[in-house]
């Protein structure tokens, strides 16, 4: 059964939100959703860029009180 995981990467300069997401995706199952919380607005660009390049699925990007919520689905 698909699960949803929250990756709280607020304040993460190293390894950073994208690297946290990559690590999370590698540990997830196909179909799982992962929501990244990031205080770096750059995540709104670099996470979708990587997701598209690898072939996973972007579900949502929204900003709330200075925190970006970026939700993706592991597609393969």
């Amino acid at each position, binding site marked *: 059964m698909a699960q949803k995981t929250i990756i709280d990467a607020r*304040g993460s300069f*190293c390894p950073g939100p994208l690297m946290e997401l990559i690590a999370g995706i590698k540990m997830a199952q196909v179909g799982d959703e992962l929501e990244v919380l990031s205080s770096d607005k750059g995540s709104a660009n670099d996470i979708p860029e990587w997701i598209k390049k690898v072939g996973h699925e972007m579900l949502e990007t929204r900003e709330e009180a200075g925190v970006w919520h970026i939700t993706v689905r592991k597609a393969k």
Partner: protein
Amino acid sequence: MRILIVGGGMGGTILANNLARRLQGELKSGKVRLTMLSATDKHMYQPGLLYLAFGRSTPDELYRDQASLLEPGINFFADPVEQFMLDQNQVKTKSGKTYDYDVIAIATGSRMVPELIPGLAENAETFYTEESAVKMFRRLQGFTGGRVVITVGVPHKCPMAPLEITFMLHDYFKDRGILDKVKLHYTYPIGRVHSLENVAKWAAPEFDRLGITYETLFNMKEVDGKNQILRSEEGSDTPYDLLISIPAHRGMEVIEKGGLGTGGFIPTHRHTLNMEGRANVFVLGDTTNLPISKAGSTAHFEAEALGENIAAMFKLGAPVREYDGKVFCFIEAGKDRATYAMFDYLNPPDPKAPTKAMHWFKMAYNKLYWVSARGLL
């Protein structure tokens, strides 16, 4: 109060010594009992493996007897935990013993898992264990030229290692007089050459200056050893003659099998270092799932905060400070120059140009580590 520390690496050792000093009187009077369980009776200085891979250190220099690093009053047993029974405040060890606690700190660390990438373990050199670092040293010695590819898995221990190994390889081949026969090619998982933006802004021009090529957004998928090709999740192939890997890491099996955390990383509160939902369970070092560097300095600063808090919980009834995400990493920029990055949850690093002085500081720290592990530095 019975305090149990599981793990005798940097975090566990500093925490134990910190607590032993803060609670010296209580340990003597028997009001507090402090116990450490570790998988081994030896303590390894893991950053030294980087130098071992180049023959600039020897294996014996990396170890001390764990007991020799610990303050009097700490009950130390080389008896790895095989089962955490958090609801019962107990752990069970390999020897079959059961240890009870009132407060537990889990610092079991992480391990490389090259086997997750098909072909990687068989075809790449690495340096995250004594055995692999010695093997890499011998391989480098016999290498006479060709395309050297550096590849990086996530998460990995020591975020500076990918840059450091690359710069040190450059200087190693230069010193051997074969740099003109070597092509260094660096790959990295995200869209710049390092996760820290300011470090990447410094490192990319350095690569350009040294003739090191790089490909970003490159995550290992598989290694075709027969044809000597590394393939990425993003769909690109890169040929190699010598493949150097920073393999992905996972937490310890006992953590994952026990259901404490996915991938062996325990969900941890970023400020209190409590295991999520557990008031008497603390986590530090590589074992946490925090979005910060898996590095000795992280464990060090967490241990200092935690030592102060656990002692205060006993003496004052409540913790007194929060961990602020502080990390300090040296960055070797070759064989004789270095810089550093220091940052926390709120403040990004601002690395300076590498200097010889900072390199020699790092060399000194390689020896001072043993003072640091004792909780004195």
